């Protein structure tokens, strides 16, 4: 056996030097291979997604400076941890933001799976805590907890996970209402280079989500709204040192006219059927973020600002609020958000691959240029 070569130890996780200085951009993997996925009814969705298309999007992200890919969780998607394992082995830089629903797995089992994944992909793992959007779907998984208690459980779940990640070899004991750990010890580490845990993202527009993010998360995801109305809402979070990121779609084109045309073309492809599906989802969801966006959608104009467009929300749902405009305009809009303290963005596009390529070539260099100019000032 002496001739065997042992695998190289995972390389250092490239962490931002100062998260306040450079905006970070993430992308959702969920539509790879099917750009109309969000307009289809759940009952008709296939969960067998084309691996080659997913890999292509990951490799594109690898090339274009995208920080991570959001790996969704739910009854219509492949398991995010296992899919990240396979995609991670074939990429080099991009990270995987693995979604997790706390009610479905023991914190220790989750941490062990995340750590194992992280060791295989050189620590390129974030986690994204989601509450689950419809109680109906949570019951597929046997999760019957009322929404009011889900925050308390999420709080305990993150307390337990962090204790296991930050234990430094000490035993973890926790006697909670939802989770108990006695003599917990997981010797499989998150990384070999001293990074103890993944970055934690948490999704939600409610006050409870903000409070939880402040306690446990590195970054709180919110749905997009105009900087003017957002600033006051996120200030308390940012003051505590927790970052705030926006979930927003992207329709950037060389000129504003082309972007507007692309937006119109996008909604033109969906008929009454798509609207009906969104209305039905709206009735079944109990997530505050969605309710808020549906209210916003009732307003008369689809332009929340000159670059924030809600025109696709009726057919594609809340995540379709989009930054729309020329590369210059979109870069400007991103920096306006940066001024009020937003530091990360999670994008979706139609189709993702083209949007990401355009973003990487045309928008991102403009953002970095302005950020650098800002620094020199």
């Amino acid at each position, binding site marked *: 056996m002496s001739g*065997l070569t*042992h695998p190289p130890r995972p390389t250092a996780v490239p962490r931002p030097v100062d998260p306040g200085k450079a905006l970070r951009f993430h992308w959702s993997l969920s539509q790879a291979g099917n750009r109309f996925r969000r307009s289809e009814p759940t009952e008709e969705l296939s969960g067998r997604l084309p691996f080659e298309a997913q890999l292509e999007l990951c490799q594109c992200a690898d090339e274009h400076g995208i920080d991570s890919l959001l790996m969704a969780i739910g009854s219509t998607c492949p398991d995010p941890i296992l899919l990240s394992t396979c995609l991670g*082995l074939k990429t080099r830089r991009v990270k995987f933001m693995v979604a997790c629903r706390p009610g479905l797995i023991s914190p220790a089992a989750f941490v*062990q799976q995340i*750590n194992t994944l992280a060791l295989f992909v050189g620590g390129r793992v974030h986690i994204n805590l989601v509450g689950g959007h419809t109680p109906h779907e949570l019951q*597929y998984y046997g999760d019957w907890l009322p929404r009011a208690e889900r925050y308390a459980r999420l709080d305990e779940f993150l307390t337990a996970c962090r204790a296991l990640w930050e234990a430094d070899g000490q035993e973890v004991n926790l006697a909670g209402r939802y989770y108990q750990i006695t003599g917990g010890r997981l010797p499989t580490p998150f990384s070999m280079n001293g990074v103890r845990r993944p970055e934690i993202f948490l999704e939600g527009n409610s006050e409870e989500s903000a409070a939880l993010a402040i306690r446990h998360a590195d970054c709180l995801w919110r749905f997009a709204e105009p900087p003017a109305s957002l600033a006051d809402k996120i200030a308390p979070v940012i003051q505590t040192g927790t970052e705030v990121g926006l979930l927003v779609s992207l329709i950037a084109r060389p000129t504003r006219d082309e972007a507007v045309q692309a937006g119109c073309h996008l909604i033109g492809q969906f008929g009454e059927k798509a609207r009906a599906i969104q209305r039905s989802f709206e009735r079944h969801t109990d997530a505050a973020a969605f309710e808020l966006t549906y209210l916003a959608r009732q307003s008369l104009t689809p332009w929340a600002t000159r670059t924030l467009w809600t025109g696709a929300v009726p057919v594609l749902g809340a995540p379709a609020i989009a930054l729309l405009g020329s590369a210059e305009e979109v870069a400007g809009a991103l920096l306006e958000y940066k001024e009020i303290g937003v530091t990360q963005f999670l994008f979706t596009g139609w189709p993702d691959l083209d949007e990401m390529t355009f973003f990487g070539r045309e928008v991102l260099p403009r953002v970095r240029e302005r950020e650098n100019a800002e620094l020199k000032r």
Partner: protein
Amino acid sequence: MTAPLRFHWRLIQGGDLQGAIAPERLSSAVALPEMAAQIAFCREAEQSGIDSALVDISSAKPDPMVLGMALAASTERLKFMVAHRPGLMSPALFAQQVNTFSTLASGRITLNMVAGYSPAEQLTYGDNAAHDTRYERMKEYLTICDRFWSAEEPVNFSGQHYRIQDGRLRTPFVAPDRSAPEIYVGGGSANAREAASALADCWLRFADTPENVAPQAAAMRLSGTEVGLRLSCIVRPTRREAIAATRGLLDAPAIQRRQGSEASFVKASDAESMRSTYDLGEQEWLTPHLWAGAVQTLGATTIALVGTPDEVVDEIYRFKEAGISQFILHGWPKWEEMRIFCRDVLPLVRQREQMDERGSPPGAELAAVSSQTNGEHGSRRPES
């Protein structure tokens, strides 16, 4: 026509290649994957006729589902027998993980369901269910998984441990030849056997003599469930060398250090079979070719087939006659022993199976072999 015997091998784990016979239970080496070495091991296994690699489970090791997935991504034929303890995640989430694995690796996943054997270890996961309850829960868990796999959606289930309403998964199990994974259930108690006969394709148990495993195996096979054995293997060209290898193992410092540790581990376990197998270790030899000398230091899976290739084939055949159709093996040195088995033992097993297939009367194998070697049937001699 009987199906050929199937042989699985326990995946080497971190630290296994540093020459250690048994790494300490909580050593840091065990906790880390050895990706390159594990891939090389799996590739050799699949080229040598091993059916699947057992990826075992413990809070001290990497997660077997994720580890198996990573290794499946680098292999082509080998299956991964992923160990899993029900109770730590939702059955629907588990079915979805298994299905995702199957989609990404052409169905090359089988499941080794274990109810857990250490109450202390279960507590680290927040699981305080008692032994019998864990089997009741496993039955509910596998029933739910089975409904998702048999596509009887929506799945509705209301039990003591799980309540599922209108469950639907859009991620099916995908394999060339199956619509659900093959399921192994391990454990020696009546509860374990009941769960296996109701819900598994194969019941896994620790070894004992062929004579002693036969009655339970016969009962299990009547219910349509196969029976598999966890066994070790020490095969050498001569019997003298094989026995010397067992001596070398017992003299190793690692074994000396494990004295007492295994005893207290078994004492703290609530698995019946772990205790009864520990007691078997009082005698060093269970049969002339079945060695139990390491059981009280290295654990219940170390009952070993010991001898020359011919002797070991004969012993495997005695187990076959006792109703055993699958074997999960490992040995010492951990990699080399698989190489020896696949090179020296497996072809003999296959040869004998082909002769059986042609209807040689029992007991006539040796005569048949010698007549085939240089007689008129030489052209029908199976390729090895």
